[in-house]
C-alpha cells in the first residue's frame, strides 16, 4: 500500500515537472531571455572587468562568487555529515 502511494506521488510530481518544462524556451534558442542580455554582457565585458581570459572562471568566481562560496560550504557540510553519520563510538 505504501509503495503504491509512493508511486502515485512520484507520477504526480513527475507530471508536474514535465508540465513545467513546457514553458521553457526551446533548447539553444538564440532569442531566449538568458541569451539576450545576460550572456552578451558577460561575453563582452568579462575580460575588461576581471582580467581573466577564461569566461567560466570569471562567472564562477567573480560575478557569482557568492554562489560559489556556498557551493564550497555545501561540500564542507557534506563531509561533516558523512563524518557524523559514520564515525560513531561502538559503546553508546
Amino acid at each position, binding site marked *: 500500500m505504501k509503495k503504491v502511494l509512493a508511486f502515485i506521488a512520484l507520477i504526480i510530481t513527475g507530471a508536474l515537472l514535465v508540465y513545467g518544462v513546457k514553458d521553457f524556451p526551446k533548447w539553444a534558442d538564440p532569442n531566449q531571455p538568458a541569451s539576450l542580455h545576460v550572456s552578451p554582457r558577460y561575453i563582452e565585458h568579462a575580460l575588461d572587468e*576581471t582580467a*581573466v581570459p577564461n569566461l567560466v572562471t570569471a562567472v564562477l568566481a567573480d560575478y557569482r562568487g557568492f554562489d560559489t562560496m556556498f557551493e564550497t560550504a555545501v561540500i*564542507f557540510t557534506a563531509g561533516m555529515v558523512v563524518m557524523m553519520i559514520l*564515525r560513531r563510538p561502538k559503546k553508546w
Partner: protein
Amino acid sequence: MVKDIEDIVISTLSRFLIPFMQVFSLYVFAHGHSSPGGGFQGGCIMAAAFILMVIAYDLNEAKRRFREKALLIFCCLGVFIYVGTGFLCLLLGSNFLDYSILSKILPADPIKARYYGMAMIELGVQITVMAIMLSIFLDLVTKGEHEGALEEDV
C-alpha cells in the same frame, strides 16, 4: 582490519604516477584562469592522487602521510580562506567578495586585483574539495572505523 597486499606492478606504477597527479592538480588549479580548470577540478585530482595511494599501498601508509588531524584542519581551512577573502574585501571598505579593493594591499591595479582575488578563493575551494573528498572516501571504505577517526583511539 585492512589486509596488507603488496603488488610490485601496482605499487611501482603508482609511485611514478602520484607525483605527476599532484603536480597536474596544481597546474589545473593555477592555470584555471586561462584554460579549463579551477579549484573544484584540481581538488578532485589531488584527492584522487591520495586515493590511489590508499588503493596501491594501504590505508595506514596514506594516513601516515596525511594525518587525520591535518585533514580536518584542511577541510575547515579552505572555507576559511574563501570567506576570509570576502571579509578582507569588507574590511578594506568595499562589498563582500568585491576583489577590486584588494589593490590596496596587493601590488596591482584594481582589475588585476580581481584576478588575484579569484586565485585566492580558488585556492580555498581546492583545499576544501581535496580534504573533503579524501575524508569521505576514508569514511566510506572503512565504515568510519579507520585509525584516528574517533576521539578514543587518537
